[in-house]
């Protein structure tokens, strides 16, 4: 095959021209930024393309090499980032939000800010990052060096051996890159570490490498391979096995996880994704556009590997197929374009990585030292730090690139690009546990993060970083073979004797396991300080807060129930109800309140009065945006306040109880006094009642004793009087005893079915002497027939007798009459005793059932009873589940009209429960 050479001057000239173009792009962008023309610079497209710095020369060259050696494994490198970006709503969004709120400048700043702004943590992360990225920078140097030599020598096979010239070349490239990065990245110090010019240049480079790779891919597949189908048909011949189950073993998972971690943890990715982010909504575009970019970069990877293996001579470096295939087909222009594409992917990575690392080194290592010993750095009081920062950043960039070169030198000749990149990935993946804890675990502490990072980094350095020097260092090679001090189970790539497991899988597994265990256990053993706790809340609950002075919550979806529950927890039920009722629409319940921003702002103020402004805001914020924090957590936060409130409420409760007890006692006291008075009155009434007959008895007895000259008739009369009065006294005393017993609930009798008419006729019979004496007619009206009531026969007779004799005694009408009638009403029998006497005056209706009450208008008081009859009768009726009432007789009953009588007196009604058979 006839081949034409591309002269070195053309290659070098094109490269220099390309770099100048980058400068122009960066310069114009910075100019536009300074003029305030942000529109294009701050577009989601530029943002996405800047993130595409993930695709370095590893992707450009190394992926094909990886595909040629390990089949589909290279895809895992892109699946990890794809999953992270597709799931931006879960993780990246939070990361970017915090980055904005906290003005984060790097991943070291992020993690140390979260853990109480721990300086030690920031330094440790910076050191790990520098060491971890060194192989990655070496990878770019190696790729550029090799590609340069391939395109100049036009011999893909030659790259297998490395000559001394390579070192010189690599050093020259490293030096040029350092200069380039210094000029680009450290021209000024920006407040928020955003570099618009650099980002624009990186975006431009992303386009260049993409187009170059697609161009090569199209040429290889359709120019050489004859289409996809024909290309894949060659796969078996060249020994790329797509169908081995090993493809998707532990290594596949490990690389997916590693790449997912790397897309966030790599300092340059953190820089472009979080620090350079101008607007959180740009993530929306990046969420699908970045995976799409990666997809485009990967479409031709496998076909290029297949064609390369089948077309190019055996022994060619598969990492250089992208360049070698156009060269072999005499497509010099395409080869040059491919070279520029690879060059751009390498330069973009080196620029951003070195800038990101230099920010970390200057901010977290140089500045803290400078602030402690200002004289050493020539800092004077009040002098700005800008110069120091610029100088330290420039030095850091140079140092970083020199370290990369050093690694390239020390590991010279050691294998392919992809394994080197994976070492870096495994290194920065150690940030992942701390980062996840920073975002989602409130109780993670600075000491925990420190312990985790130290453990993980140590295991990584021993099992991954150290073995990469084996090819150029005899002692390390020896160590890999026999283990330290001959301890085989501590061999770096076969820890605990696991010979069968892939070294990368082992290293990642053990380091991340150790990292996580140390993080969790030390976190549980230590406590966050105050600032650590505050930062933990600001990070973990970033979506529940409102920053930068705007205190009001935007239109919320806060459920009113939750708001009310929380308010009740803080203010207590009563005050919460009052507060909510005040906001309720008129005439409606408080459940109809719209949780408007005004309402919530008002609520916050009310809460702030109880628990302080900050707590109120955080508390309300958690309910209002109600994202991941559960109500339980909010309630727990409220609990401290609540305990105090509960205590005071308890006191209040106790006071209230005491007050009510006192009231009850007072009421009881009043009752007792009334009862005492009643008792006194009763006693005085009784003694009065008793004294009258006793006086009569005593005076007649005295007359009989002293006056011996009384005639027998007189003597007879006096003795009768004494006898009568004694009878009256006995009757009275019996009635008092009877009433007393009834009132105390003694003297119980059994109620049984009784014929009321029988009891009535018996009572009328007993009353005959009285009725005859007063000439009162007792007549029966309409009587209910064949009914039986639940009562006691003797007692019911007693009541009837009392009522009939009362009606007889107090009737002053010309033709006194008592009419008795009865009727059934529901479950009761009602018996009316109506007379045509004077009736009971309305004033007396309440008192006639009191003890010792007598009809005031009765002229013949001496003949009256004790005044206890009605009281006893009513007591008896109640004991028989019936009642005795004085009823309204204004309208003449039917019985009276029948007899032509107009005037009615009193009417007593007896109610008795019917016996139901």
């Amino acid at each position: 095959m006839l081949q034409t050479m591309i002269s070195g001057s053309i290659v070098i000239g094109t490269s220099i021209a390309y770099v100048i173009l980058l400068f122009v792009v960066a310069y114009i962008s910075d100019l536009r930024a300074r003029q305030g023309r942000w529109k294009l610079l701050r577009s989601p497209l530029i943002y996405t393309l800047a993130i595409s710095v993930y695709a370095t020369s590893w992707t450009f060259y190394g992926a094909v090499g990886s595909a040629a050696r390990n089949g589909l494994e290279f895809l895992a490198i892109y699946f990890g980032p794809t999953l992270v970006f597709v799931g931006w709503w879960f993780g990246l969004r939070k990361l970017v939000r915090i980055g904005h709120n906290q003005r984060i400048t790097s991943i070291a700043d992020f993690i140390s800010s979260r853990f109480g702004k721990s300086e030690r943590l920031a330094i440790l992360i910076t050191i790990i990052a520098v060491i971890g990225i060194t192989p990655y920078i070496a990878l770019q140097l190696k790729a550029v060096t090799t590609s340069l030599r391939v395109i100049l020598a036009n011999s893909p096979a030659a790259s297998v051996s490395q000559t001394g010239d390579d070192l010189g070349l690599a050093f020259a490239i490293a030096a040029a890159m350092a200069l380039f990065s210094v000029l680009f990245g450290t021209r000024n110090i920006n407040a928020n570490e955003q570099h618009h010019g650099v980002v624009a240049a990186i975006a431009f480079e992303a386009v260049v490498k993409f187009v170059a790779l697609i161009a090569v891919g199209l040429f290889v597949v359709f120019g050489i391979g004859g289409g996809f189908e024909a290309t894949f048909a060659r796969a078996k011949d060249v020994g790329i096995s797509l169908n081995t189950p090993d493809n998707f073993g532990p290594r596949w998972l490990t690389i997916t996880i590693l790449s997912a971690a790397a897309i966030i943890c790599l300092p340059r990715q953190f820089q472009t994704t979080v620090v350079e982010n101008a607007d959180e909504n740009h993530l929306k575009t990046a969420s699908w556009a970045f995976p799409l970019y990666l997809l485009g970069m990967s479409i031709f990877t496998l076909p290029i590997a297949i064609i390369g293996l089948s077309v190019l001579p055996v022994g060619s470096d598969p990492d250089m197929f992208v360049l070698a295939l156009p060269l072999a087909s005499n497509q010099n222009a395409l080869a040059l374009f491919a070279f520029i594409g690879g060059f751009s992917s390498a330069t973009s990575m080196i620029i951003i990585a070195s800038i990101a690392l230099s920010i970390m080194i200057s901010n977290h290592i140089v500045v803290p030292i400078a602030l402690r010993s200002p004289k050493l750095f020539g800092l004077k009081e009040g002098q700005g730090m800008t110069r120091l920062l610029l100088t330290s950043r420039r030095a850091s960039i140079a140092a970083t690139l020199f370290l990369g070169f050093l690694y390239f030198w020390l590991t010279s000749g050691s294998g392919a690009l992809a394994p080197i990149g994976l070492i870096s990935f495994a290194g920065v993946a150690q940030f992942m546990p701390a980062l996840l804890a920073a975002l989602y675990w409130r109780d993670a502490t600075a000491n925990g993060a420190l312990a985790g990072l130290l453990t993980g980094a140590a295991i990584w350095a021993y099992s991954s970083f150290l073995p990469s020097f084996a090819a150029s260092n005899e002692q390390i090679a020896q160590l890999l073979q026999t283990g330290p001090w001959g301890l085989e189970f501590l061999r770096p790539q076969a820890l605990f004797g696991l010979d069968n497991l892939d070294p990368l899988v082992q290293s990642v597994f053990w380091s991340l396991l150790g990292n996580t265990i140390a993080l969790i256990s030390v976190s549980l053993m230590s406590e966050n300080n105050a600032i650590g706790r505050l930062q933990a809340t600001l990070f973990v609950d970033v979506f529940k807060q409102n920053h930068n002075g705007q205190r009001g919550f935007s239109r919320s979806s806060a459920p009113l129930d939750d708001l009310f529950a929380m308010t009740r927890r803080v203010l207590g039920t009563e005050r919460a109800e009052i507060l909510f009722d005040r906001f309720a629409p008129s005439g409606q319940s408080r459940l109809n309140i719209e949780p408007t921003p005004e309402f919530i702002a008002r609520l916050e103020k009310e809460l702030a009065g109880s628990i302080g402004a900050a707590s109120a805001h955080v508390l309300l914020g958690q309910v209002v945006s109600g994202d991941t924090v559960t109500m339980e957590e909010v309630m727990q936060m409220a609990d401290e306040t609540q305990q105090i409130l509960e205590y005071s409420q308890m006191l209040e409760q106790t006071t209230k109880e005491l007050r009510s007890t006192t009231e009850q006692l007072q009421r009881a006291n009043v009752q007792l006094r009334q009862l005492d008075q009643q008792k006194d009155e009763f006693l005085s009434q009784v003694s009065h009642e008793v004294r009258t007959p006793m006086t009569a008895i005593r005076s007649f007895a005295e007359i009989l004793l002293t006056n011996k000259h009384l005639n027998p008739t007189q003597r007879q009369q006096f003795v009768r009087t004494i006898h009568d009065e004694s009878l009256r006294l006995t009757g009275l005393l019996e009635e008092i005893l009877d009433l007393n017993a009834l009132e105390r609930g003694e003297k119980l009798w059994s109620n049984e079915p009784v014929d009321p008419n029988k009891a009535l006729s018996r009572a009328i019979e007993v009353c005959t002497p009285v009725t005859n004496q007063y000439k009162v007619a007792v007549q029966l009206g309409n009587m209910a027939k064949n009914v039986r009531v639940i009562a006691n026969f003797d007692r019911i007779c007693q009541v009837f007798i009392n009522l009939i004799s009362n009606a007889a005694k107090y009737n002053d009408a010309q033709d006194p009459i008592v009419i008795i009638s009865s009727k059934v009403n529901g479950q009761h029998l009602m018996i009316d005793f109506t007379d045509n006497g004077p009736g009971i005056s309305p004033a007396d209706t309440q008192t006639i059932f009191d003890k010792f009450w007598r009809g005031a208008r009765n002229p013949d008081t001496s003949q009256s009873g004790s005044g206890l009859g009605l009281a006893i009768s009513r007591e008896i009726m109640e004991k028989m589940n019936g009642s005795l009432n004085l009823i309204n007789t204004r309208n003449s009953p039917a019985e009276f009209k029948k007899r032509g009588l107009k005037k009615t007196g009193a009417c007593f009604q007896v109610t008795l429960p019917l016996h139901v058979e």
Partner: protein
Amino acid sequence: MTRQKKIAFLAKILPIAGLIVILPPLVSITNAKADFFGFPAIITYLFTIWIFLIVAAYLLQRKLPSHTPEQVEKQPHTAPSSKLNVTDHD
């Protein structure tokens, strides 16, 4: 679940679903010696998932709410205390 919550839920579950389908045993099913219009089945499978994830992410991000940031006053990143201005109350 409201429509908004459902979309947010889908957005969260999408990467998990994506991870599950590229891991064994699901990936092993298509890791057969079959071809699909000239493409090996496994290639077709993985790239189809990839495209599906991209399309799903595109559709979801259109439905997800945008973040409207507060007016951030430009203040120099000088004292660390400036990061703590969240708790002071106006």
